[in-house]
């Protein structure tokens, strides 16, 4: 069994979709939209290819009652493969047990993410947020078409009809028609019916949203049946391995491949613009030859000579220097004018190191390149970027790129870079070999070629009026640029480095004058969004500073926050509830409690860490972590809990263990022995409560990650009086802080 669930248009020379079809799709829901034939042999039980009558680009209904729904997002563990089709199914009133999910093909005009300007891109925990309204409309439109057809058949007014799951019901006459029966004779109008927002279901009428269903791909994830791109095999395929330059912009200038070529099974050594590739008959031969290569590199590229240990000092000096050239990120009121008038002020600095994604599936892709066309198998966070990057690399139209987007063995932001470099490895080697090639990175490659969560230094200043009220706030972030490296296209549009800077704001707290600035640092280190993006570093700084201010003023950090958030009732609720869960205020022997709160893109999250500390070794132990989340409507509540637990564990790694260092421009770490990630014996008991509200759903995939470091630092401060200012809180740093 495979999970080769992608839509596979059965086409050799012509593109899967004509321009006209896409244009029709662009005006909205087009019932005239026709899909090319698909490859049934590749279909699986959980995600059969589309069968039956196409009711819309999103929905088909088969005579046996199977309802096929397209899923526009990629699946990397967050659950979108289930939750997005579920939203359509809700308004369609589909019988979920008969629903099959199929990944949508890369046709942005129809399936693009409204939250990313129409790109097909799964990131920012925004799939449900951005698709929620349109998918409800699309579901309701198909339901309406079914009802109108049923009404005509029954000879009754359409408003006398209701639905039960997958059945149209005329209560007056007791007549019923299954959706499958209607689809068999239905006339689908050229123009989709108008659905007004008030015609959608009221939350109280939801049958699927807010209930927990089994995620569609889960059964395959307990028996080895789930198919990731690394599992792909193609007839006649070779294996590839690649050594990339240690520094971005560098190239090989000396290649000694004698030993590599002597490895049995090696077919060839390929010089690439940015490294050297190996082609071999087996995976093991490719890896062995890769190890045997000796390569010298040009010293082109910005990062050569950069040392992160020294770099962080330079970043911190820049953040602290009032004359350093700064770019304004956001402001409220007039902090520049108000800060000098403050009756008193407090300053503080915080620092964060580089960190690595460590998705469990090392990056890989399979490609076949022939005759001006390419076929790729990959796990990407963006179908759009994947096909565009491949088309650009080969100089062919994107319609000539056939994409098979597979399950991702973790994403965490690593697989949504505009250049999709790990796919290009396979494409370039396949072009050279004129045979399909699967390129796998080793774990060491994955670490060395890592694109880091940026290093950053933070300088903060708070000003108070004579009554002691917090009135002015300044935050200067000195950090590597991220957005311009990850995605120059989006950076140009936004004009700001949002991946570095998001989370600097004080949403939820009333502080009238705020000024937040970025001081660009160009170390040349490869950077990336990483789960929690800017929030993880920035909330460590802002929440730690709030906590520090409270403790310096002998205020209870809980009460201090509640006083600042009087105008944010949803924030108050998550904070009060988490304090209740943790029994905040109840003294405990040898253990400290620390609190953090975040409004993360609308989701309200609060967390409390309970820690103890070994004063001799400097080791912190987190025993319990309580967490509340209000993400509005929780589409899949148990998955909200699961994602929050996951975010906490990820945040724990960022807080205590995970650290990439750079020496002479290159990553120093290699594998899980020198880049430690949390294991089961590192994690606390986690107590997560979802506070469901009727607000528009907001993200859940990473919101708790940035809570963990400030909550732990707060707990250490409460227990010892020492303030931790640099993540991760390694034992040596803790000992230094304890003095």
């Amino acid at each position, binding site marked *: 069994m495979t999970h080769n669930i992608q839509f596979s248009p059965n086409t050799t020379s012509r593109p899967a979709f004509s321009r006209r079809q896409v244009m029709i799709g662009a005006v909205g829901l087009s019932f005239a939209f026709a899909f090319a034939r698909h490859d049934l042999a590749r279909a699986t039980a959980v995600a059969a290819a589309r069968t039956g009558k196409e009711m819309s680009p999103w929905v088909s209904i088969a005579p046996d009652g199977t309802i096929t729904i397209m899923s526009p997002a990629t699946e*990397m*563990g*967050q*659950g979108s493969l289930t939750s997005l089709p579920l939203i359509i199914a809700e308004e369609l009133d589909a019988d979920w047990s008969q629903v099959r999910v199929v990944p949508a093909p890369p046709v942005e005009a129809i399936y693009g993410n409204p939250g990313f300007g129409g790109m097909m891109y799964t990131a920012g925990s925004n799939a449900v947020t951005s698709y929620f309204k349109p998918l409800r409309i699309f579901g309701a439109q198909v339901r309406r078409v079914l009802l109108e057809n049923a009404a005509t058949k029954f000879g009754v007014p359409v408003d006398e009809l209701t639905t039960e799951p997958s059945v149209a019901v005329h209560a007056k006459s007791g007549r019923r028609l299954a959706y499958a029966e209607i689809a068999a004779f239905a006339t689908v109008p050229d123009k989709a019916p108008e659905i007004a927002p008030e015609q959608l279901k009221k939350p109280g009428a939801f049958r699927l949203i807010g209930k*927990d269903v*089994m*995620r569609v*791909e*889960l059964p*395959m*994830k*307990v*028996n*080895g*049946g*789930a*198919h*990731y791109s*690394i*599992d792909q*095999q193609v007839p006649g395929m070779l*294996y590839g391995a690649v050594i990339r330059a240690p520094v971005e912009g560098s190239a090989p200038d000396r290649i000694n491949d004698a030993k590599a070529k002597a490895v049995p099974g090696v077919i060839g050594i390929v010089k690439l613009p940015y490294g050297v590739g190996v082609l071999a008959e*087996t*995976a*093991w031969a490719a890896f062995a030859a890769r190890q045997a290569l000796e390569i010298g590199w040009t010293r082109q590229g910005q990062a050569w000579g950069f040392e992160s240990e020294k770099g962080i000092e330079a970043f911190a000096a820049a953040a602290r220097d009032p004359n350093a050239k700064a770019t304004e990120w956001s402001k409220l009121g007039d902090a520049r004018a108000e800060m000098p008038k403050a009756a008193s002020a407090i300053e503080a600095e915080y620092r964060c190191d580089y960190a690595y994604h*460590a*998705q*469990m*599936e*090392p990056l890989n892709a399979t490609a076949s390149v022939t005759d001006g066309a390419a076929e790729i198998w990959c796990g990407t966070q963006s179908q759009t970027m994947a096909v565009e990057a491949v088309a650009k690399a080969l100089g062919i139209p994107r319609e000539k790129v056939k994409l098979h987007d597979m*399950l*991702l*063995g*973790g*994403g*965490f932001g690593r697989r949504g870079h505009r250049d999709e470099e790990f796919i290009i490895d396979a494409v370039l080697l396949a072009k050279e070999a004129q045979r399909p090639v699967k390129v*796998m990175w*080793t*774990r*060491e490659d994955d670490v060395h070629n890592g694109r880091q969560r940026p290093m950053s230094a933070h300088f903060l200043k708070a000003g108070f009026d004579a009554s002691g009220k917090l009135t002015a706030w300044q935050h200067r972030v000195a950090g590597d640029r991220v957005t311009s490296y990850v995605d120059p296209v989006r950076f140009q549009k936004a004009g700001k480095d949002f991946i570095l800077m998001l989370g600097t704001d004080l949403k939820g707290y009333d502080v009238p004058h705020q000024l937040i600035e970025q001081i660009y640092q160009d170390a040349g280190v490869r950077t990336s969004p990483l789960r929690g993006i800017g929030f993880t570093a920035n909330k460590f700084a802002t929440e730690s500073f709030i906590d520090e201010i409270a403790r310096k003023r002998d205020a209870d950090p809980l009460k201090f926050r509640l006083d600042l958030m009087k105008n944010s009732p949803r924030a108050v609720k998550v904070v009060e509830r988490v304090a209740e869960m943790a029994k905040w205020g109840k003294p405990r022997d040898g253990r400290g409690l620390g609190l953090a709160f975040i409004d993360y893109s609308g989701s309200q999250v609060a967390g409390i860490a309970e820690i103890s500390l070994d004063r001799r070794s400097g080791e912190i132990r987190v025993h319990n972590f309580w967490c509340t989340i209000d993400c509005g409507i929780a589409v899949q509540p*148990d998955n909200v809990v*699961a*994602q929050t*637990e*996951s*975010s*906490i*564990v*990820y945040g724990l790694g960022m807080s205590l263990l995970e650290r990439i260092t750079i020496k002479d421009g290159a990553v120093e770490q290699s*594998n*899980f*022995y020198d880049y430690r*990630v*949390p*294991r*089961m*014996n590192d*994690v606390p*008991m*986690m107590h997560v409560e979802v506070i469901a509200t009727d607000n528009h759903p907001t993200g859940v995939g990473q919101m708790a990650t940035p809570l963990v470091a400030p909550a732990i630092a707060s707990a250490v401060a409460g227990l010892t009086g020492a303030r931790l200012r640099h993540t991760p809180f390694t034992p040596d740093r803790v000992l230094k802080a304890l003095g």
Partner: protein
Amino acid sequence: MATSFIVNGKPSSTDAPPATPLLWVLREGLKLTGTKFGCGTGLCGACMVHIDGKRAFSCQTQMSEVAGKSVTTIEGLSENSSHPVQKAWLAERVPQCGYCQSGQIMSAADLLKHNPKPTRDQIVEHMSANICRCGTYQRIVRAVERAAREA
């Protein structure tokens, strides 16, 4: 030189060089891709299989060591995902990205085979050989406890 061994109850053989790790023979040779490549150094447990009834890192086991032995992979753990650990994994909704879960399940099945009623501490100790980057650990503990209860 061919190496003969048993995989999921069936005789098998490979002409891969004797130093080839079992992992690559399983995945690329026998197309048993449920066993995953994670680190190649025996640090993450994504490659966990059973060899003669005990868990082993297939990335650290050369074919020369497997000759004549019996290997069980996730595909051979049960028919129809019916092993108590697999059932518990679904009941507790453990997997997220799922990539590490074959290895986790093989580790848990090994634990319960040798220690049918483990304490929580024993579960944590045993399962700390496996990394889950999605951080599903709390649910893994619950699932192992459930499997011990319901087996």
